[in-house]
């Protein structure tokens, strides 16, 4: 039903602040005509925690752990980008072996995050068996993280000038065993996601982001690559050991030969990236040089050096959701003068608008989830009380989405 076909006025449907897809706070207000979405307004800031401001009272070593707590899933990317920024600003050397170990940690995080996302996406369209299957695989990735870092979520592995834990020879068999497990199960996952009729029906042609929009709205990560833009920091620039590794851009073209920029393409994109990550970890394990894992083991010395440093630096790291960029300015004090964090979802908010326009209400969860939003990363500063508005809550919305899948199957 097109808006012109009816004389009725449009309705405004507020959704949120608890996110319809991932359980995260973002507030949508949709203008609806019948079942079609005409306009979208996004409100943010429900979990702004003043992280950047809090850094004014902390030294760079302390900020590493503050950065780690920006996001639970990206608990490696934020300290990584911050470390890169600090190292650029103060011109600190990095141990060569640590560069490879950093890549391994980053890619392991990508595997964990993308598989988690695959499960959530399946859940959004009512395919809960796949949710449990993916999370079983993810559990293995979490166990491997725990084995390499000591803890499951807050890894605490990054440090300025290197990395805090080495991968010794006796740890390699365990890594290889788990990589083999991921590879074996990757085929299964790919089969379910790429060949299943229901998933295709729900995701093909839904939430289209054109190449032009992705470019103009500055989308990042798998969202922009699924629209056919070759933008991957790991290949574009040389940071960590990515400059040494054999890595190529991945777009959905690699599998289907065409780019539509729809939800289905974003599913393909993430699955292909999981495979790429496994290969990158294997390359790193092979090529890793021997040596120290940190350029200056005495942290007190590093802190003294940073206290003297003057300058500004930018650290960029390709996180699972896209580019994380941190800007740091040092002015010869304990704490950095400025620290600005940009999480990938920040840039992936505006692309939601062209994606959702013209879609049905039941498509909101899967389309919104398809950018893998992480709102707590994006809102880093205050607390908000959103008043009394009648809401279509997430259970109702989820039910709508599941019902649409059922309708399509019959």
């Amino acid at each position, binding site marked *: 039903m097109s808006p012109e076909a009816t004389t009725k006025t449009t309705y405004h449907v507020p959704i949120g602040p608890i996110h319809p897809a991932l359980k995260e706070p973002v507030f949508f207000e949709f203008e609806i005509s019948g079942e079609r979405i005409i306009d979208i307004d996004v409100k943010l800031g429900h979990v702004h925690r003043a992280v950047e401001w809090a850094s004014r009272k902390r030294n760079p070593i*302390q900020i590493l752990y503050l950065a780690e707590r920006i996001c639970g899933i990206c608990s490696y990317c934020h300290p990584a980008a911050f470390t890169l920024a600090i190292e650029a600003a103060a011109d600190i050397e990095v141990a060569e072996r640590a560069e490879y170990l950093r890549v391994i940690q980053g890619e392991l995080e990508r595997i964990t995050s993308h598989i988690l996302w695959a499960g959530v996406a399946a859940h959004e369209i009512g395919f809960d068996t796949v949710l449990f299957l993916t999370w079983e695989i993810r559990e293995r990735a979490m166990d491997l993280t*725990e084995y390499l870092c*000591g803890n499951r979520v807050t890894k605490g592995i990054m440090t300025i000038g290197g990395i805090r834990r080495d991968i010794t020879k006796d740890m390699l068999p365990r890594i290889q065993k788990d990589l083999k497990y991921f590879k074996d199960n990757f085929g299964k996952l790919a089969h379910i996601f790429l060949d299943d009729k229901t998933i295709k029906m729900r995701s093909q042609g839904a939430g289209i982001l054109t190449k032009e929009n992705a470019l103009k709205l500055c989308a990042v990560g798998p969202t922009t690559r699924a629209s056919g833009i070759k933008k991957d920091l790991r290949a574009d620039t040389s940071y960590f050991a990515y400059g040494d590794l054999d890595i190529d851009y991945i777009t959905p073209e690699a599998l289907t030969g065409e780019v539509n920029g729809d939800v289905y393409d974003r599913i393909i994109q993430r699955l292909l990236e999981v495979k790429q990550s496994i290969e990158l970890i294997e390359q790193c394990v092979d090529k890793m040089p021997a040596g120290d894992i940190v350029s200056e083991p005495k942290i*007190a010395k590093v802190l003294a050096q940073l206290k003297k440093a003057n300058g500004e630096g930018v650290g960029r790291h390709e996180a699972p959701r896209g580019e994380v960029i941190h800007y740091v300015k040092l002015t010869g004090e304990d704490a950095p003068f400025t620290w600005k964090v940009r999480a990938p979802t920040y840039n992936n908010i505006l692309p939601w608008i062209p994606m959702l326009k013209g879609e049905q209400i039941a498509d909101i969860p899967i389309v919104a989830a398809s950018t893998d939003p992480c709102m707590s990363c994006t809102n880093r500063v205050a607390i908000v009380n959103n008043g009394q508005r009648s809401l279509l809550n997430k259970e109702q919305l989820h039910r709508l989405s599941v019902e649409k899948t059922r309708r399509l199957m019959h």
Partner: protein
Amino acid sequence: MGFSMLGPVFRQMFKKPWTNKFPAKYQPSSTTKYLEAVGAGKVKLNPPVPTPPGFRGKIIYDKEKCIGCKLCLKVCPCEAIEFKEKDKKIKIYLARCCFCSQCNDICPTKCLSMSNEFLLADVDPYSKELIVE
């Protein structure tokens, strides 16, 4: 797809469950009474999943080795460490600790280390269990 999920479903029926029943195999009728019994040594806890090597749990503090250099205070992200001026030793509030083990790394005499203990839940943030000194 056909019936490709049938295999996993059948396997699931005979597999040992992944879940580790902790702290008891079956839900006790009263948790407090159960924990009292554990405290009295009458019942044994069903053990938790073992922690991995290098796990960062409750901090162990070797007071004798500490020289009172205050370096750990400088790096602690949560300001969980307090310096006792009188006897030149430290006091760690675990309720604020984020278990990053940065104080372990910077300590020149290695008087701090991380244990495997992670069952630290308490109702009082200043209880005896949660203060290391």
